[in-house]
């Protein structure tokens, strides 16, 4: 009976095949080692590393995080050990896990840095995909690459020439039209887009009359932004053909399903990792159960399958 047929959770993202569609979002899972003992890492669909730059970055002054209604602000400022130290000290542990590793990278000043980073990562077999973080709100830039369709397309097509690996472009929600940017990434050869990075936000301690974040502004994440993220996934889904990796406030299976119905091929768990380190695994088993209970054999049968609401 359909009800008992084993559902197939695997999905393809460009050349990348995932055993299940649940990843952990960049910057919310470190380099996985921190979660050793808190969950069985081998069960994850994929791990996206904290964003790496060429040189080590110390990151922004503290305080770097604060809580907001149903969300949080962060301004870490891409603190990371730099690509060489990452490869030497962090990658070995990740390789041992035997699950797809997606390395997130960013440029500090010059888009050209992406070429160098991609060049180095292209040589490493265990790196299954590269995520271009052109949407980090915490680097005191007045404009992000992903806030301009032209710059996005220029960068992606340049990088595309440098690697055959699966390329994921991560976009910022702080734009007038997410689908225009997503389309630009697709046309430039990106294998997928990751939606969404954090929204620029600010929270004020009225007693200190100061921003709660040391670098004044931070990126908003968590359940508060979920409706914004779901809407952007839905909007992009209706305009582009490449897979969408949906994220933004996913805490449990119900939230994850919203993103699949809105058009996500895979989803990413972010802030939830801080609150419930097992959230991602609970979503995987929840997804298996949901598909079995509803006789859904393949995820493609739910991705984007949104009905009109009859009152």
């Amino acid at each position, binding site marked *: 009976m359909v009800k008992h047929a084993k559902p197939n959770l695997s999905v393809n993202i460009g050349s990348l095949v995932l055993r299940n569609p649940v990843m952990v979002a960049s910057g919310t899972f470190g380099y996985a080692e921190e*979660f050793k003992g808190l969950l069985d890492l081998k069960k994850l669909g994929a791990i996206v590393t904290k964003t790496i730059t060429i040189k080590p970055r110390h990151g922004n002054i503290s305080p770097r995080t604060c809580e907001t209604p149903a969300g949080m602000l962060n301004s870490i400022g891409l603190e990371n050990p730099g690509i060489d130290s990452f490869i030497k000290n962090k990658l070995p542990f990740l390789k041992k896990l035997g699950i797809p590793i997606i390395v997130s990278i960013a440029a500090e000043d010059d888009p050209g840095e992406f070429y160098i980073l991609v060049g180095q990562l292209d040589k490493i077999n265990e790196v299954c995909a590269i995520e271009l973080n052109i949407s980090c709100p915490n680097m005191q830039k007045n404009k992000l690459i992903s806030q301009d369709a032209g710059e996005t397309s220029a960068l992606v097509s340049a990088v595309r020439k440098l690697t055959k690996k699966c390329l994921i472009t991560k976009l910022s929600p702080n734009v007038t039209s997410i689908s225009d940017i997503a389309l630009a990434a697709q046309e430039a050869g990106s294998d997928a887009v990751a939606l969404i990075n954090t929204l620029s936000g600010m929270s004020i301690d009225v007693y200190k009359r100061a921003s709660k974040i040391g670098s004044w502004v931070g990126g908003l994440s968590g359940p508060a932004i979920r409706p914004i993220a779901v809407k952007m996934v839905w909007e992009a889904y209706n305009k582009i053909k490449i897979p969408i990796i949906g994220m933004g406030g996913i805490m449990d299976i119900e939230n994850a399903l919203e993103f699949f119905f809105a058009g996500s091929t895979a989803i990413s768990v972010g802030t939830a990792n801080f609150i419930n380190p097992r959230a991602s695994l609970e979503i995987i088993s929840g997804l298996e159960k949901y598909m079995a209970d509803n006789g859904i054999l393949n995820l493609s049968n739910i991705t984007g399958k949104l009905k009109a609401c009859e009152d």
Partner: protein
Amino acid sequence: MEAVQLKAKIISNKKLKCNYWYLEFDSRIIAKSALPGQFIEVKTGNGIDPLLRRPISVHSVSGTQVKLVYEVIGKGTQILSERKPGAFLDVIGPLGNGFEYNRLTKKLDKQKTILVAGGMGVAPLVFLAEKIKSHRPVVLIGARNKEQVLCAQEFKDLGCKVIITTDDGSLGFKGRVTELLKGFLSENQKTGKPEHIYACGPQPMLKTVVQISRENNIASQLSLETHMACGFGVCLGCVVSTKTGYKRVCKDGPVFMGKELIW
């Protein structure tokens, strides 16, 4: 020992006095491995308000039970105070490095160790005092007023010499605990000065303690507090500046050597 996430049964959750509560939960595995200065990340309620966990120090451990002492100052601690015994508390722990004392205190004579607690700062120091009680540490407690002096008896029961000061003088000396520390050190110049200071409390107090310990060149260990999103070293949100760069208070700390900190 690696930290674990588990749902621990609440054994008791009672008001101590004022807004101070203590809570005991049952977890053999955490009780067995927790060290003084380590803390627990507590999901205070279900739901998303507040969204994040709350870090609370391990106040002490007895058998399979872990005891926390906390002050109700906002949403999370308010909700925590409403949790009933028998219910299950979602906790992650033990977290952080904890105080260093074995190696350090082994060679010390009695009363060469001072514990300096400001307000809620007593919480992790009780557990420490228990471990080093054979050295008869001297405990300096500072609080706003009489009502807010916590755990004094517990320290006494452990055989510690306890000296109290309050901002309003309603109990013990009048003034800040850092002034008390200054006084205590000058008095004991002759009798051979203390050799190690452990401190926990509000940041301004800790900064002064570090100054004092430097002036008197006494080694000091401080338990710091910062806002924590994760509590287990992954978000990089809780950093403090040290001589060797930014360090995570939740993972590399919360306990730091006075000499490490750039204060």
